């Protein structure tokens, strides 16, 4: 399979689930064509609610519907919906309603629209909420499996998706295990924990380093909360060096989540790769991945530099 945006995989799977699960209702805030929620909306118009550009009201209305036995998915660009943090905190997380927040167009991978539309902090803010699950799939198969899981999930969740196409790291027979780390490559010189759009790039960069004699393990973290702490601690102890890679700020994202676990349970030298406490900008997705060193070449360079000069233990 060629490149495919995870938002498209989401739209296809949700529309398919609409047939078997009559309780699914879908909300969008004037971005249904972009988030791909319209695939569901055009098949099931009576269960699709165009809320206009009212993210807060969408959050509350979905919460109200959830109390009536419905399974709402609310969709927008990730930063527009997660930016309504306090509404999510009060009306979804604290009330513990089974609303899935679907944030598309995450990371610098959104491209030309620039920083105002870019979610670089969404994992950080959603992860801070009690009751909130955070899932970021890496490809088509994983996205579809995650959507199937979330359709039955009884608690608040945030699903983070890409605008841009991503390469496939899993086969069609992939089994998604909620809350479990997904090891893609063995290795003993260090472990890379990667999430979302950059998982494939991290894998390719690790394969290049393999040919130079650096043997890195690669683990995909699709469930960022609850984190598979046992797996992370074990991999850190077995390899002695940890890298995290994400298209997100290094503050509060996967890197922080891994560091929190390891600093308490298995202090290990580590390097967080991501967006370094800065804003994004306009450009092609590929151009931005090159500039911010999240493409295969950039990751190869960043990983190599880290492995050669690991932090002082």
């Amino acid at each position: 399979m060629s490149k495919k945006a995870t938002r498209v995989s989401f739209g296809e799977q949700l529309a398919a689930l609409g047939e078997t699960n009559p309780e699914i209702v879908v909300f969008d805030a004037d971005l249904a064509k972009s988030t791909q929620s319209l695939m569901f909306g055009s098949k099931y118009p009576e269960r699709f609610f165009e809320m206009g550009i009212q993210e807060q009201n969408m959050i509350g209305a979905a919460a109200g519907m959830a109390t009536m036995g419905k399974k709402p998915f609310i969709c927008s660009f990730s930063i527009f919906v997660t930016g309504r943090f306090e509404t999510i905190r009060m009306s979804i997380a604290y009330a513990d309603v089974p609303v899935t927040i679907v944030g598309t167009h995450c990371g610098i991978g959104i491209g030309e629209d620039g920083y105002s539309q870019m979610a670089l902090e969404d994992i950080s803010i959603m992860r801070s909420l009690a009751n909130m699950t955070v899932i970021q799939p890496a490809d088509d198969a994983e996205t579809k499996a995650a959507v199937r899981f979330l359709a039955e999930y009884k608690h608040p969740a945030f699903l983070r998706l890409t605008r841009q196409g991503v390469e496939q790291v899993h086969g069609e027979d992939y089994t998604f295990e909620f809350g479990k780390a997904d090891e893609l490559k063995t290795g003993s010189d260090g472990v890379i924990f990667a999430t979302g759009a950059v998982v494939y790039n991290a894998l390719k960069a690790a394969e290049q380093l393999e040919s130079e004699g650096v043997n890195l393990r690669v683990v995909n973290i699709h469930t960022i909360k609850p984190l598979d702490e046992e797996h992370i601690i074990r991999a850190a102890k077995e390899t002695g060096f940890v890298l995290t890679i994400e298209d997100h700020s290094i503050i509060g994202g996967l890197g922080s989540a891994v560091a929190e676990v390891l600093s308490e349970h298995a202090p290990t030298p580590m390097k967080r790769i991501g967006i370094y406490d800065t804003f994004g900008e306009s450009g092609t997705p590929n151009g931005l991945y090159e500039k911010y060193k999240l493409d295969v070449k950039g990751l190869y360079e960043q990983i190599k530099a880290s492995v050669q000069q690991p932090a002082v233990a």
Partner: protein
Amino acid sequence: MKYSLQDLERFANEMRIDIIKMLHEAGSGHPGGSLSCIDAVTSIMYNYVGRTAQNAADPDRHRFVMSKGHGVPALYAVLARMGIVAQDELMTLRKINSRLQGHPVVTALPEVEFSTGSLGQGLSVAQGMAMAAKLDGKPLKIYCMIGDGELQEGQIWESLMSAPKFMLDNLIVLLDYNKGQIDGPTREVMDIEPVDEKLRAFNWDVQVIDGHDFKQLDEALTKAQNTGGKPHFIVAHTVKGKGVSFMEGVIDWHGKAPNDEQTVDALKELEARVNAAAEVAQ
């Protein structure tokens, strides 16, 4: 079964006593906005929501959402009078491990229907409940109480714009227009007038009433049962601190509990009113 207007008035005045006792025991809370809304909450919960201990968990029950969460002592008092919350549990308000949190928490006490207290959010939730009832073709009514200060929140206006689009004639919003908020009179802090004209312009079915007149409350709530396609908005003019003369219309009573002496005075006045009404009834 519908209660008589005399019964409702008596219930509300008896519950004003509960509210003062609860807030005094808690040592904090919001007497002004609890006393201003208790008459409307009583009318809605007894005669329109028709809540009872038996139907409190029925999926097809009518629902009441207290969007102005700081007024929740009024709702707790009603739930206690209905036997859904134990009467002595009222005295746990705002204390550690109590189900009666300072603002309603649905995970602690499901009968409050939703968690509120961060203003402006409950109306959106009530809207979603009304949308779900429509989707399922259920003849449920969703009642929502909002405050006048709360009307300053942007999210409220999102919902006010949205509910008419979805033709939510099963949504009945009551504005507890008590004219005061923490920082001062509502008209000075951020005027909401002309509120009825704004709501009519937003395509709501609007009524304006005296929110302490049980006959007007009953007539307005009855009219709001119509299914003409528009959501219903009842502007209920009320008095902050209603029923306790030294609290009435005094902004300072928005968010503080009466001390021992003030509690004695308030209870004396409220009990005298309840007793006088009982004598008239006999």
